């Protein structure tokens, strides 16, 4: 099964629940209070920003031919057969080559500076048959988790249109 995220930009209201959910999911305790108490607070892999007044969610697009994986000196980034590009924090040495090579500037340094992080499409949640943390938390359906849609790439951004019927799928990655 190929995991996929579908981001409908028109539906994003910049509430930030995806950022909180992502951070909590990547904390050691996996609950909000534990994550808040964690001294090295986990970083969200998804970013809410805005452009010309329009709220936008930014996330790794899991490229077909990831530049980050090619430049990583530690071999910490792998493209899985099911499509996800995964950065193993345990192997990362924090050199930042991935952030230099990424055309979207996605990888960010962990707060202790010893590793970089990026979206891993929540593997432990998917193993349990659940959707990604961001998709579960999003109250408007701006981030939706799909599965099994072959040939569409891992992350697709849907172009803001003039009405619900004019969405064009833009596929992320190579």
């Amino acid at each position, binding site marked *: 099964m190929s995991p996929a995220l579908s981001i409908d930009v028109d539906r994003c209201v910049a509430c930030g629940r995806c950022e909180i959910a992502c951070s909590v999911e990547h904390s050691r305790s996996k609950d909000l209070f534990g994550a808040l108490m964690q001294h090295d607070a986990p970083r969200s892999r998804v970013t809410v920003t805005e452009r010309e007044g329009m709220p936008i969610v930014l996330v790794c697009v899991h490229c077909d031919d990831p530049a980050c994986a090619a430049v990583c000196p530690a071999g910490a980034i792998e493209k899985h057969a099911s499509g996800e590009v995964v950065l193993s924090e345990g192997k990362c040495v924090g050199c930042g080559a991935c952030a*230099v*090579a990424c055309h979207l500037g996605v990888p960010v340094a962990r707060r202790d500076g010893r590793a970089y992080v990026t979206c891993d499409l929540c593997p432990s949640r998917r193993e349990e048959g659940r959707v990604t943390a961001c998709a579960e938390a999003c109250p408007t359906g701006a981030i939706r988790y799909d599965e099994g849609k072959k040939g569409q790439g891992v992350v697709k951004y849907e172009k803001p249109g003039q009405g619900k019927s004019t969405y064009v799928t833009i596929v992320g990655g190579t």
Partner: protein
Amino acid sequence: MIDITIDGIRTTVSEGDTILAAARAIGIEIPTLCHHDIVRPHRACRVCTVEVIRADKVNFLTACTYKVTEPLVVNTRSEGALARRREIVAGLVASSPGAPALAVIAHEAGIETHSDSTGERCIRCGLCVRVCDEIIGQKALAYEKGAAGTPYKTVSDACIGCATCAAICPTGAIVVEERGGVRRFPQGNREFKLTACRTCGRPITTELHLAAVRAKRSLPDSVAQVCPACKRASFAGLVSAGESTRPPKL
């Protein structure tokens, strides 16, 4: 296969597996500082000290280096283990206060950290040397003979100023300064020209490090000469304009 118990949980390990690996395999976190999966364990910080009971003998050993050869019982959070660990961490904090990775462990052990120390922070864990050697590949750092001297003061011309040694150092011993388009490592007495982001002017990394990254993968200037923050801003621009988020063709 050997049966061991960690914090009351029974598990089976292969001979030669470390206690740290066995604990992680069953979801038990033992704090570490000088350990990194990518290089051999060094037993330099001893933060991973745990209580090990073998045939009624109790010892306090480092989980990262102790390899299991017989059935045993491990307690990672017994009174004795916690007391030992607190002592070790307090000692490290006294010599390296304010180091980010150490502050995390200290905080969780209930130890206060404060940030004024001019003493030597290096715990000779060898992470900088090994990472520069085996991962970055520049082999620019080396230990000086004898107890005196720390690796990052003996920096060869192979150094490209990537500062990965500083990033990986668990006690924040390596100082990096960036000023006036130059990155300096005062302790190793090295200086490197920085490449500035052509959008915002802030430094990305050293010219040499950037060249090493670009040698591994052809990158257009619009990717390699723009800092991650500005690239994220243009990511937002692409999405709002409904344009493709694919990498630009060379």
